[in-house]
Structures are given as C-alpha cells and as structure tokens.
C-alpha cells in the first residue's frame, strides 16, 4: 500500500528527473532556465520531506530567487538566436546514453537498496524538539567558522571579479566633477570669435 510520503516522493522525484531532462533537451535557453527552476522547486519539496527545512528554503531563496534570476537575465540580455540546424543532437548521443546508463546502473549497485536499505539505515526519525535551523546554527559559527570566513572571501572574489570583468570603465558614466567645475574659468570655457558684422543693408 502506498502512503502519502511515498507518493509525494515518487511524484516529485519523477518531476525532478523530467525537468532535468527538460533543461538538457529543451530548444530554448529560456525554457531551460524554467525547467531548472522547476528542478529546484522539486528538490525543495524533497528536502522538506527530509526535514531539512533550512536548506530547502535556502535553496528556494538563494537559487530560485537570486541565481536563476541572474541566469534568466543573462539569457534575455544575450537573446541568442539558436541556429535550428544546430539544435540536433550530437552523433554520438546513443553512445553517451549508454555511458550514462552504465554509470547509473553501477552507482545503483553501490547506492541502491542493497547498500542502504531501510534495515541498514533505519527510518528517518527525529525527536519532537529537533530544529533543523538550530542544529545548523550551532556548528556554523563555532566549528565551521573558518570555512565561513573563507566563503566571505569567495563572495568578495565574485564581486571583485564580476566588477573587474564587466565594468566598462568610467568613460561611459556621466558624473559631476566638482573640482573641475570649481576650476572653470572664463579663459578655458569661453571662446570669443571675431566675426564679420551682420549685413546691415537689408532694411
């Protein structure tokens, strides 16, 4: 008999794999992005089923909220026309499929029910007072303070790098240069041009 949990798991994991396929195979980059967002949504559900609330929501916020928006933004900005002829799959697609199938099978052998059956791992059980966020927070700033600091460094790198790479320099900005304004003088701003006087004989 299938309980709700099982049903939910299979529904969402099926959807997850389908949308993963969608990311790979869809014709347009925009739909790929959408499929990826769907992937993340399904994962969030699955993680919530695991009682990993904090990460599930973080995934939603960080990925769907920020990263995928960035992707979408870039896709829209570049707006690349895909040549229809190139949309075909590669010649060696069947070969890759065999490779992938083999890999999944072998991983199944190592990870499947033989290795991690319920008998061996037990059911997912937490005490009533389990608080996922607290559990994470308890070690995040104690044991893992060094990686946390380093992650700050990574974010700094991302910021510096992204700015250094894409910032096109000041020549495109229109800024007020106060010293320059104050230094303005008649001599270098005003040009007196001598011209022949207007013809007066028109009257």
């Amino acid at each position, binding site marked *: 008999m299938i309980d709700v*949990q*099982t049903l939910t798991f299979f529904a969402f*994991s099926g959807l997850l*794999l389908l949308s*993963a396929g969608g*990311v*790979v195979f869809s014709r347009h*980059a925009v739909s*790929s*992005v959408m499929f*990826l967002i769907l*992937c*993340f949504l399904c*994962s969030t559900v699955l*993680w919530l*089923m*695991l009682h*990993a609330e*904090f*990460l599930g929501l*973080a995934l939603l916020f960080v*990925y769907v909220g920020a*990263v995928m928006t960035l*992707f979408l933004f*870039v896709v829209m*900005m*570049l707006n*690349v026309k*895909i040549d229809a002829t*190139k949309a075909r*799959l*590669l010649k060696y*697609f069947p070969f890759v499929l065999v490779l*992938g199938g083999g*890999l999944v099978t072998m991983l*199944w052998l190592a*990870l*499947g*029910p033989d*290795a*991690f*059956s319920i008998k061996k*791992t*037990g*059911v997912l059980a937490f005490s009533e007072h389990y608080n*996922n966020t607290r*559990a*994470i927070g*308890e*070690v995040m700033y104690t*044991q*893992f303070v060094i990686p946390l600091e380093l*992650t700050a460094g*990574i974010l700094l*790198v*991302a910021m510096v*790098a*992204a700015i250094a*790479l*894409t910032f096109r320099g000041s020549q495109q900005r229109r800024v007020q240069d106060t010293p320059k304004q104050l230094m303005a003088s008649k001599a270098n701003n005003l040009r007196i041009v001598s011209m022949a006087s207007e013809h007066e004989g028109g009257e």
Partner: protein
Amino acid sequence: MIGLAHYLVLSSMLFVISFIGIVINRRHLIVMLMCVEMMLLAVNMHFVAVSQYFHDISGQIFVFFILAVAAAESAIGLAILVLLYRCRQTIDVESIDQLKG
C-alpha cells in the same frame, strides 16, 4: 516507505543526467552552466539525505557552503560568458574552438 537508497539513487540519476547534458549540449553555453548547477544539486541531495538519515549535521553545513559557493561561481561564469559574447557575438558551444590542436 522511502529509504535513504531512494534519495541516493535519485541523486545519482540527476548527476548522470547533468553530466550527459554537458557532454551532448552543443548549442548554448549557458545550458552547460545550468547543467553544472544541476550537478551540484545532485551532490546536495546526496549530502542532505545522508546527513538526515545518519543525524550528522556536517553534511548539511557542506550543502550550505556549496550553495553559497555555487552562487558566487555562477556569477563569475556568467561574467565571463557575457564578455565572450561581447567579443564574438555568439555563445555557441561549437564556435568556441579558437584554441585547439
């Protein structure tokens, strides 16, 4: 009942799909980057599941860091991508073959 094996196999499938995605994709570079994100999602799935089933929180901490790092990574990746597009007016995977041999 849903056991750990379900999650692990699911994550392995997701991993292989994203790997295949990188290998067979010859259109949009950006899809490659998305496949990398998906690969990391598979890894995260694995970590979260093992962490929860064995009550070891460090797996989830790892996921947290992976999320943060992956976000930063995609920022840099997209920056390079945009630059390349400006330079060549294309981000076809097949056109990125100036360096070879």
